[in-house]
């Protein structure tokens, strides 16, 4: 009974610390970026260059490369252990 209460208290303390630390962090500067001003110009640019599609492909490609590095790190770690 005693140990369960202690453990619950520890978890509550950790949650309080995390909430406190995160609440101290600043808001994202890109959070309020609006496309209103440049929306027309982005449309014009997209008329000549498919920026949206390129970004989508790039994002997908970047995810693949990230996964590659992640797997390579795991494999190297396993090899190191071996």
């Amino acid at each position: 009974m005693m140990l369960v209460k202690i453990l619950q208290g520890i978890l509550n303390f950790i949650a309080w610390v995390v909430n406190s630390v995160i609440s101290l962090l600043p808001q994202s500067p890109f959070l309020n970026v609006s496309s209103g001003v440049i929306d027309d110009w982005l449309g014009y640019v997209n008329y000549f260059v498919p920026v949206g599609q390129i970004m989508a492909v790039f994002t997908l490609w970047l995810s693949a490369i990230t996964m590659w590095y992640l797997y390579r790190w795991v494999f190297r770690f396993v090899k190191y252990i071996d």
Partner: protein
Amino acid sequence: MRKFLSLMLVVLIVSNSILVYAQDYTLIDNNLGMKIAPILIGAGLAFSSYEALVSATNNFIGFISIHFPNVYNRVVDLVQNGLNQITLDDEIFSAVEAFVQAMGIGQVDIVGTAHIPLTNVFGAESIVQQIDNDYVVSGVSEYYDWVLNIPEGTIAIVAASMQFSGTGSGSMELTLRMSASGNQAIAEKYIYDAATLVAGQLYNVISYWYLKKIGGIYYASVDGVTWKNVGTSVKNRIYVLPKLKNLYFSLALAVATVAEVSISIPANDVSLEIDDARKYREDKEVFYIPPIADIGELVNVRYDHVENVGQGGDGGVEVPIDYTGILQGISGILQSILSFLQNIFQNIVNLLQTIVNTMTQTIPNLVQSIMEGVESIANLLTEGLIGDIGSITIPEIDVSLDSKFPFSLPWDVARLVGIMNAEPKPPIFEAVLGGPFRNASLRIDVSEIFEEGFMQKVRYLELIAFCIGLAIITPRLIGGAK
């Protein structure tokens, strides 16, 4: 310890196997041996002890060799001296009679013809001839009716080559009659017609029919006499025992059967009996050899009660080896070993039983107590010290990470991409030209310059070019294609 137990187990199995084998070996027909015993004595064999006799009889497995070293010279002397009468030794009869009486195995009834001089045994017409230094006794007697009335259970010894008159077969007839009447016949291998020197008609009758059926072969040999090739009529396949041997052998065997009946085995001129024998064989295919009558408790009678038994004969006596004593000794030793090992194993079994009983009664209680103790400790820990683990709750994190820098960067990127993914639209440029152009307005609509299909193809080509560029730089990033 394990090796010791394995060794003892192997010794136990081996000794037990040998013991069983020894016991089986000594279980040769005792009754047959006791039947043979008077025959052996009557034939002149002497035994040093009762055990030797029992051994000789018990180990009778179908072939007994009796040696008559002096009979040849004795008969030759008799013949050369012109004697026409040969008598059997009285001591042989005495020995047989004493044995039979001591053993109580039957009434000594030496009938008629067997207990008379030789000339009478073989009838009045018996003669002694000399053929190539062998002596042939030939004669005719009336035995046919007697053979028909042979008592059941009689052991008959058919001589090796009974001398026959004409083409008949006395021993042949005797053998056949006895077998057919439910008696046991013991026959020698060859039958030979002394008068005609023709053995072809009978030579294989006993050899091929009875040899494997009868209870045994009673064989006698005589020093100084050799086998003789009979002649061309049987294509050298038949060998005849010396006539002297046949004579004495026949007499000895005849006397030997006095345990139940005395048999004289003269010859007879009955040619048709050959056909009868063949017919019998063809009809029956095999001959019936019944078991010898049971003598029972006679086996236990001591030979010590008999005095001066078997001291006759011709002087040359072969004493059989007493295997019984050896086997009994081996059996005793093996029995001792077996008993010793059985005691050891019994003690081991008792010890193991005690241990097992202790374990089966004590260990469960002990385990039960331990389990109860563990359960009490577990209850104390879970309820008193630890408490209910299921009551623990995970506290929530109230702040969202997608808005707090720098944790919000992935979400920021996603938002920027979404902003840049605006709907493409053709630009329209409008301007007012002043001065020399008198404020004329200028309007350039790109969609009017390029058709939509054309710009769409251009965007596709640009996207493909971008993908190709990614494909080119990818190997550099992942370290391949060097």
